[in-house]
């Protein structure tokens, strides 16, 4: 079933790549955001089925944005898509409420697998 997806990443290149991957998986990207604050606003506006979140973003980082979104929408499915692979970052992101974690470079199989897991866990 196609999902409504928001991509939050400050890198235009990553956004483009994720967009292609998401559409390749049959999902619909309803919005993109390049800062933490934009991500929160986009979530409120679109209430997506899934959101990908970068950790390093200007004005408010991905972890803060994730915490804020999950506090407002506890059922939010947020997957961290980031180049930060340090153990602490991973655990902190999950503590912030992320439901999954994909490290760059993002491969379509890896992304598809993670989306399936996140959807399964939340049903």
């Amino acid at each position, binding site marked *: 079933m196609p999902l409504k997806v928001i991509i939050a990443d*400050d*890198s235009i*290149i*990553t956004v483009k*790549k994720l967009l292609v991957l998401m559409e390749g998986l049959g999902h619909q990207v309803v919005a993109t955001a390049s800062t933490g604050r934009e991500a929160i606003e986009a979530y409120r506006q679109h209430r997506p089925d899934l959101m990908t979140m970068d950790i*390093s973003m*200007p004005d408010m980082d991905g972890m803060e944005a994730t915490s804020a979104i999950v506090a407002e929408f506890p059922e939010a499915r947020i997957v961290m898509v980031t*180049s930060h*692979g*340090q*153990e602490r970052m*991973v*655990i902190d*992101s*999950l503590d912030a409420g992320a*439901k*999954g*974690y*994909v*490290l*760059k*470079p993002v491969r379509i199989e890896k992304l598809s697998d993670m989306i399936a897991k996140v959807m399964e*866990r939340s049903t």
Partner: protein
Amino acid sequence: MSSAFPGGNPNDPGYWEVIFDVIPFPVYVADTTTFDIVCANRAMKQRVEINPGDKCYAAIYQQPGPCSFCKMKELEAAAAAGTNYLEFEHFNDLDDHWYQLRETIVAWFDGRRAKYSIAVNISALKEVQNALAEAHAELALKNIRLNGALHSEQEVTLNQRNFLAMVSHEFRMPLSIIGGAAEVLEIYTRGKPEAVEEIGKIDRAVHRMSDLIDVCLADARFTSAVAALQVRTVEIAPLVEEICREKAAFGGPERLHLSIGARTTITADPALLRVALSNLIDNALKYSPAASGPVRVSLESGPTQTVMTVADHGPGIPADEAERVFEKFYRSPSATGTKGAGLGLYIVKQIIESHGGRIEVGAADTGGSKFTITLPMASSPIG
């Protein structure tokens, strides 16, 4: 040494290009103020199209302005502190590769301050590291889910325990009033047989209700995190005799038959053991029809264990339900018509197992069920 290179003069850009070209990793030099590319080596040019005068952020990273990850300021700060280079890892999302970058501030021969950057592709290494980090993430997610499930279960257990404790208390209050009133009535009505009989009924009902409350309390106690057995040396035979005597007082001596072999002591919590054995006998009496013959209780003690059996005349328990009857709230379809909450046998099993023993059910010679409790002589509590 300088004669080994064409030009041989460090003030000649060609001199540096030759040196950089020898390096097999991509190298570029950029002005620290203007971000203009000063020069780049062959490996760099093979990676991206790059020419002197291009802005490094545009030519290498296709960014409209200085990159958010640019380390130029940190490099200047490090240089001021006496360290003129930085080494860091960077994921380049243009080519989806990880690089280890070593960037150094240099005074370029024409007087400009510049940085030169050497990039080593470490994608293979990072792939392994990232797989590990993702595996940790997966593990952490599982832990979060398990903790959530555990928390919910603990919450349910706590609520149930509180509810049972509250119900038990609420029942005990009126029961003690009824029991007390019956005692007073007994004093007032001495010598009147009808009244004595009626008061006896009240008394038996009070006791039965009190036993039921004990069952609920025992369950509450077992689900409590602080539950701990209060063990001591117990003479098992007198305990069983006492329980049977109490039961016979209400059901009639013909309803129970007790046989005791060798007498011995075990290490146990006498109060809980009493609840377990009492429950089991109550159950046997409950399911045995009135004129079906006595419930047979036997106690045998060997060198390593004590075995107690309780055989009834009830409908029996099908083999496929032999394990399930000990589950919490399980009620056998054959138990329809008999009152019960499905807690009794569960509690018995919990108590017996917490003493390091076991309980089994099978068919009795009498046609009903036979429950067998085995308790180790040196009881080794697991609770």
